[in-house]
């Protein structure tokens, strides 16, 4: 009696061994490291040798420089201090076109790495870093699309010489006013043919004939979806340009984007770059009219009033020569003559043609560069959050056109080389398809992350020790069995977390601690049942059998209900709470396995298949 068949013992053993192997990578320490990647191509062995030489010259001790997947290189350091000095050295010496980022990397032996095993994925609260949640203003994307359509319709009517009174958009629909209905009907036919996406309706009001165009819901959804995807791409470009190891950029729900940068430490710079929609516009200066007139409120037709950085007002022509959309590449640098920071810009074909035509016609006249920045902020107005777009337009440079130019040229007038860098980065990464706003930020410094790990580990170990001690004293041999399976349970939780690469957060550690407390419950139920059976006069073997048997359905019921709570937590929770739900969920499953099957197997090995007079319980 009370013997498991061999296959069952082997199966349990196999699961435990498998768990041990999966949990193994967590035993190796994390090296402070720097990841180096090239904007184009890879970091070759020559560059790696160069880095090694530079580090040696600077007196920074390096543990190893390794080749990594995706043409990256990883520099390992002995200490965080060396890592920071290494970063400073790279800042000074690394050429343009390479990015480097602080990271941590486990120092795994070759064979562990060859198996593709990885340690648990630590959340930002444990490793430090920046987390931001971004809200995408989808309605603005639709409005922008409508604005574009309005412009296109106006151009179409003008080109086809159809006489209209006004073209505009209001309340989410396009509105064109005509003097009479026959012209409107002609226009309607034309617009229907040219813009298949628009639902066209007609009407009349106050003697005028109207044409309305609206975007069907399906089309609006498509625009929104596209805006979100486009924004994710743009944000990814921007983040990649920052040079952070293992960034996470993913969609959350209908209109949110999560950006997580492990190890990053400058939230101000990140937020500036993510939220900004900086771009440039090139316009001619209006020299025919007086600035004073515009200041007095009489802005001349075809011109607009701008201000330079020093507050000086200036009149610019309304027509834009080239916008930021037409910029294909941009790089920051210094002007060779003046030494001031600049951005060198390349235009696409159309932009280059326009630029060449305008500059050819206007040699000797001044041209202005407008720096446009906009961001969305939510303000509380009477307690209610209200979204507002803040747009700033500044003229950063005015210069006479010395000779015609086209595809490539420089723009100066930037405040600092950092501003030049940021602008170049934003121009390269592309524009956002819809305005965004940062609605949540959580930044954890690296030292706090380490503190959290230490505190978490300590409470797990001490809590575990207390429970182990109690069980051993109270249930003796059976208690030791429960202790052993409890430890196996911890190993299995770590193994499953490593396998799934689920994020371990501080509340996640709390979940593990809680599981430790609750995991013994199954064994307590069984052992109390066995004691009861013994009291009722059953033989030891029969008591063991009945104890496990009768406790089973209770254990399952009790655990399923906790599973329900964990699932609800997972589906409603965000970030840290999700981490708790995940470990709780995994912990319940593994504890059921270890506490029921694992402990039974051990008890069977100890007592099974022989005459037992008394149980040490």
């Amino acid at each position, binding site marked *: 009696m009370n013997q498991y068949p061999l296959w069952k013992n082997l199966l349990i053993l196999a699961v435990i061994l498998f768990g041990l192997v999966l949990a193994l990578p967590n035993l190796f320490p994390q090296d402070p490291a720097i990841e180096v990647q090239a904007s184009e191509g890879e970091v070759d062995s020559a560059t790696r040798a160069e880095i090694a030489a530079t580090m040696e010259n600077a007196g920074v001790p390096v543990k190893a420089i390794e080749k990594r997947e995706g043409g990256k290189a990883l520099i390992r350091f002995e200490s965080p201090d060396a890592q920071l000095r290494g970063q400073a050295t790279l800042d000074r010496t690394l050429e343009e076109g390479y990015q480097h980022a602080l990271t941590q990397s486990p120092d795994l032996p070759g064979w562990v790495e060859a198996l593709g095993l990885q340690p648990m994925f630590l959340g930002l609260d444990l490793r430090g870093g920046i987390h931001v949640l971004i809200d995408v203003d989808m309605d603005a994307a639709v409005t922008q699309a409508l604005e574009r359509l309005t412009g296109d319709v106006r151009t179409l009517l003008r080109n086809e010489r159809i006489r209209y009174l006004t073209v505009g958009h209001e309340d989410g629909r396009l509105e064109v006013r005509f003097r009479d209905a026959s012209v409107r009907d002609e226009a309607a036919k034309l617009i229907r043919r040219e813009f298949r996406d628009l639902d066209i309706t007609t009407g009349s009001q106050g003697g005028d004939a109207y044409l309305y165009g609206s975007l069907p819901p399906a089309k609006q959804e498509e625009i929104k979806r596209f805006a979100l995807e486009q924004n994710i791409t743009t944000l990814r470009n921007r983040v990649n340009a920052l040079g952070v190891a293992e960034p996470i950029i993913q969609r959350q729900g209908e209109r949110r984007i999560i950006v997580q940068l492990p190890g990053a430490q400058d*939230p101000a710079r990140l937020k500036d770059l993510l939220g900004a929609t900086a771009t440039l516009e090139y316009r001619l200066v209006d020299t025919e009219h007086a600035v004073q007139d515009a200041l007095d409120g009489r802005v001349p037709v075809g011109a607009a009033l701008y201000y330079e950085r020093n507050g000086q007002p200036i009149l610019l022509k309304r027509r834009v020569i080239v916008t930021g959309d037409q910029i294909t590449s941009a790089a920051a640098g210094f002007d060779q003559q003046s030494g001031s920071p600049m951005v060198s810009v390349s235009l696409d074909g159309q932009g280059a043609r326009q630029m060449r035509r305008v500059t050819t016609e206007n040699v000797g006249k001044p041209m202005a560069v407008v720096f446009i920045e906009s961001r969305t902020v939510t303000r509380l107005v009477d307690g209610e959050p209200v979204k507002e777009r803040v747009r700033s337009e500044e003229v950063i440079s005015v210069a006479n056109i010395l000779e015609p130019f086209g595809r490539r040229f420089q723009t100066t007038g930037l405040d600092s080389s950092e501003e030049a860098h940021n602008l170049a980065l934003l121009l390269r990464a592309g524009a956002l398809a819809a305005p965004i706003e940062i609605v949540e930020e959580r930044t954890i410094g690296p030292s706090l992350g380490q503190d959290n790990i230490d505190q978490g580990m300590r409470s797990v170990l001490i809590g575990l020790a207390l429970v182990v001690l109690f069980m051993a004293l109270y249930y003796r041999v059976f208690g030791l069995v429960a202790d052993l399976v409890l430890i196996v349970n911890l190993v299995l939780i770590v193994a499953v977390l490593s396998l799934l690469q689920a994020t371990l957060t501080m509340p996640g550690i*709390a979940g593990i601690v809680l599981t430790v407390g609750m995991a013994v*419950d199954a064994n307590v139920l069984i052992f109390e049942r066995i004691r009861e059976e013994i009291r009722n006069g059953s033989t030891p073997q029969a008591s063991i059998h009945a104890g496990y048997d009768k406790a089973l359905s209770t254990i399952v019921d*009790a655990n399923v209900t*906790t599973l329900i*709570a964990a699932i609800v*937590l997972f589906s409603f929770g965000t970030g840290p*709470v999700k981490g708790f739900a995940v470990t709780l969920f995994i912990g319940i499953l593994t504890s059921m396995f270890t506490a029921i099957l694992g402990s039974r197997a051990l008890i069977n090995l100890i007592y099974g298949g022989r005459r037992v007079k008394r149980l040490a319980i």
Partner: protein
Amino acid sequence: MAHAQILKDSHIDFLGKRRIAAIVSGALMVICLLSILLRGFNFGLDFTGGTVIELGYEQPVEVSEITATLAEEGIVDATVQYFGSNRDILIRIAPQEGEAASATISDRVFRVLSADVEGGLELRRVEFVGPQVGEELREQGGLAVLFALIGILVYVALRFEWRFAVGAVAALMHDVLFTIGMFSLFYIPFDLTVLAAVLAVIGYSLNDTIVIFDRIRENFRKMRKGTVIEISNRSVNQTLSRTIITSGTTLLVLLALYVLGGEAIAGFSLALIIGVLVGTYSTIYIATAAAVWLGISRADLLPPEKEGTLVDDRP
């Protein structure tokens, strides 16, 4: 040989005291409800929105100096306090009309303070939650508790019987109300992790309840004699040592977590400690008493259903 035992075959008349328990619980519930309605919660940043900045100075600093520096920059609604030592500073900025509702306020604070500092200044932690996110999290939190309760109600009703399900859910609501009531009464900060703990309390308390219900069902089938009260009492007594031991081990680790786990999860551990204590009590006095009061009877649980989706291997 005698083994270590907390209780020797107890015969406590738990259900005989169910009226006293009902009065005590009722009074507690009224106090908790009143506190929640009148006093409300000390909602943390997660639910109210706003900004928290934790800074580490190399040299000891004065709170008043920091307040003054911030005030010069027009940041007047910041609460500055020590956090552990006189070199660790915590700054809270409530959401308000104007710029403080945006994510950039923390950057301004850090810039202003680092310009002013002698020695180093480390940015340890920034948490910013926008007003709309805070509102969403509050809503989602309420929904989560609701869905967890419904899910459990359905499961218990399917596995047992509706009277048990109602008893279990009554006990759960009692526990949830008591736990959050304590957070309201003592004005302990209530953040997302506390909400997670409340949901874990639901799971835990139910665990306890199920164990006793299971035993009541078993005893109804096994014991031919005895009133409902007698059988219920017997069941509670039979499972009592298990109840105490499991609550005890869970409390042990929770205490370790509360003492050693650090500020970040102190609220979480506290909520669970309260929850485990009240959960143990409610299992006996609320869940079982409610099921008895609703009139569970032997007939409801017979004939025995087919048991065991998990089949133990019998050699």
